[in-house]
């Protein structure tokens, strides 16, 4: 074993700047390629995450290729083409039909989302290698989609009370069908791991939500938005923030307990997600997003000042003068398009850099593996070549990594 590395340690050697450079380059290249570069960007991004994550001194390897994702996307179009036809026919129908029809399509998409998520996981696992051995996933994606669909319906019907059972069931399904080489993973957790913290948080959360609704009613939000005073807003924002913190707190417990229930033979994953660390990711994200948008606003004003010289007088924008400049409608159009792309791009960039990266790094840093010695006799299985890209998963934008 490599010296200086603790047995079973998981490390992350990436840097935010390195990922930022990949993302920036990717977003720029997306413009001339009408968005197609996103498949290459995804591939590079995954390589960055995988290669910078080492388990017991050996880095993960991502062997997926951009053209596989491109192909999968093309295949997903075949599903969405008829859906768009349905939308068109629906839009010409009566109101009741439209509502029922859109509802049915939404349900279908919710169902397909489960399928897509499972297939995407399969694609990622079967293209992940460690120590020359591939991971893989078996199981039935349609079965998983149905399972998830029915559980989420039950969860909705019980106002969230079924959640621990749903989570336990789906986690177990996913891991019992995951493989490393010729050895299947196992899942030692169940609803029992989640029940106590979940129901406690559920009670506190329900209390917070009811309080929020009462405060909103008292401050007159339902009559008119203007009627709400500063004190009312402060209370409501604090309550909403409290709900967010509570959810984050619960998530840190769920992640800790569920990830720690993953087994591979005698080896076990041990994860300890600290609540402040998880909360910090969201706080950083919010701050970075705010900073990015302030930067964009300032940049936009500077550009406006340069293009529309006279239109910006001190702190005021002279609308009439601005419109004269905008007479050339091509310029106006260009401004709209680039402005939109910048806003959207900034959001995607900051999300990936602070949420995606932060989440991955935190998980890697808070995890280790015990009982690694038992993995030495695991043999390889052939690559799962049947999967062309992530298909629907790409179209539905499933999965962050």
């Amino acid at each position, binding site marked *: *074993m490599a010296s200086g590395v603790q047995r079973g340690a998981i490390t992350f*050697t990436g840097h935010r700047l*390195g990922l930022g450079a990949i993302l920036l380059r990717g977003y720029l290249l*997306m413009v001339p*390629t*009408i*968005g*197609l570069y*996103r498949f290459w960007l995804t591939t590079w991004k995954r*390589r*960055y995450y995988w*290669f*910078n994550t080492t388990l017991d*001194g*050996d*880095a993960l*390897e991502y*062997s997926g290729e*951009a*053209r596989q994702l491109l192909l999968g*996307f093309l295949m997903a179009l075949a599903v969405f*083409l008829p859906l*768009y*036809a349905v*939308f*068109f026919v629906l*839009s*010409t129908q*009566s*109101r009741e039909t439209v509502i029922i029809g859109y509802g049915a399509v939404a349900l279908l998409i919710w169902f397909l989302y489960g399928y897509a998520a499972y297939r995407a996981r399969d694609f990622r696992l079967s293209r992940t*290698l*460690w*120590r*020359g*051995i*591939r991971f893989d996933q078996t199981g039935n994606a349609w079965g998983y989609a149905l399972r998830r669909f029915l559980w989420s319906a039950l969860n909705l019907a019980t106002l969230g009370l079924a959640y621990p059972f749903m989570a336990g069931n789906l986690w177990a399904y996913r891991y019992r069908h995951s493989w*490393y*080489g010729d050895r299947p993973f196992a899942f030692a957790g169940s609803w029992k791991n989640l029940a106590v913290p979940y129901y406690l948080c559920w009670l506190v959360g329900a209390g917070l939500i009811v309080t929020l609704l009462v405060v909103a009613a008292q401050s007159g939000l339902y009559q008119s938005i203007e009627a709400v005073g500063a004190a009312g807003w402060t209370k409501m924002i604090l309550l909403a923030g409290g709900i967010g913190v509570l959810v984050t707190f619960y998530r840190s417990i769920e992640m800790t307990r569920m990830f720690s229930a993953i087994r591979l033979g005698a080896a076990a994953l041990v994860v300890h997600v600290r609540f402040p660390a998880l909360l910090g990711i969201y706080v950083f994200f919010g701050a970075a997003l705010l900073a990015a948008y302030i930067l964009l606003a300032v940049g936009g004003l500077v550009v406006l000042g340069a293009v529309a010289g006279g239109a910006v007088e001190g702190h005021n924008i002279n609308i009439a003068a601005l*419109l*004269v400049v*905008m*007479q050339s*409608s091509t310029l*106006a*159009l260009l401004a709209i*398009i680039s402005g*939109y*792309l910048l806003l*959207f791009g900034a959001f*995607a960039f900051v999300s990936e850099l602070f949420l995606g990266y932060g989440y991955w790094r935190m998980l890697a840093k808070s995890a280790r593996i015990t009982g690694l010695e038992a*993995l*030495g*006799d*695991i*043999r*390889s299985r052939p*690559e799962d070549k049947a999967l062309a890209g992530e298909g629907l998963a*790409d*179209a539905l*934008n499933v999965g962050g990594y």
Partner: protein
Amino acid sequence: MIIPARYYDGQLSGTHEVFLAHDGAGAAQAIIVQDASSREIIARWPVAAVKTIPARKGELRLRASGVADGARIVVTGPDHIARIRAGLPQLADHERQSRGEQVRLLGLATLALAAVIAAYIFGVPLLAGRIVQLVPPGWEEAIGDTVATQMEASLAAEGGLPLCDPDPQSLANTAIARFGNAAMEGSGSPFTPDIRIVRSDIPNAFALPGGRIYFHSALLNAARAPDEFAGVLAHEIGHVVHRDGMEQLISTAGTGALIGFILGDLTGLSVAAGLGAAIIDTRFSRDSERQADLYAVEVARRLDFNPAALAVLLGRVDQESAFSRALALLSTHPLTQDRKVALDALSRDRPAGLEPPFTADEWSAIRHMCGPRTSR
């Protein structure tokens, strides 16, 4: 020359600390993988089969064709990597080659997508014109009814679009119906115009698929001469005859599908492309506005009114601002000043001695059918 490395055999999960050595000459050159402690040779990779895999900085990952799928040699440290690369110059060639392949694939896919988008953007309006011919008139009428129901329901909070004069036999309504039928005459259209003068503060007039035309009281009240009213009405009848509403519906559905399924709904670029598609849409609809103007000119060859008056009326209610001129590229209607010039030119040699569209009594009844100018 011996380089320390790590080796995975791709069959059994585990690592081997190894030394790499170079062996043979010419086509028989190979990398020898030697166990670091026992010095036993555990693998022999022909140099020509060795390729790199993208890896993190400071690490070189090698694979080879003809060996186990997951078998890897991992070399760390800049010095060791430099020595391997110096000994295996074809690694760089292969990297260049596969980069070229990726660029070609991306370029080709982009070209193909651009071609599809172009074909789509120019093809959909053309196709919509063809498809609309295949839509049975009965179906179009049913769609028009649905659109009308949806629209009136959405305006229900503001009182909907109530008819100014609900009596179909009134002087004003019979005169309008007569004008509608006369304007439609000889067009071969399967529809009967159903013109509704409705109470609304928004100066507007529009035609739905299937022959229904809404004319808002605010626009009627702004009219100062029967020519203006007749001109706008003839223009809307032109839309009915050309089935523009239906065509627009099909075209919009088509371009919407383009945005969604070609580009993937969730990329920011789709909206940018959508704006582009919107421009094409509006260019298409401005073209149909011009066609409807031409139809009004045709009607004015049979009935005595000046079609250019329609631009006068529209110009009066739509005070064209610098802003609307600036956004002309995005507007569905041609600028009224441009329309007026075109209409004036077209209506110069109208035949003389035609019957006026409305008698003085009828025009007076029409002007007052929405009551005094209560609503602006």
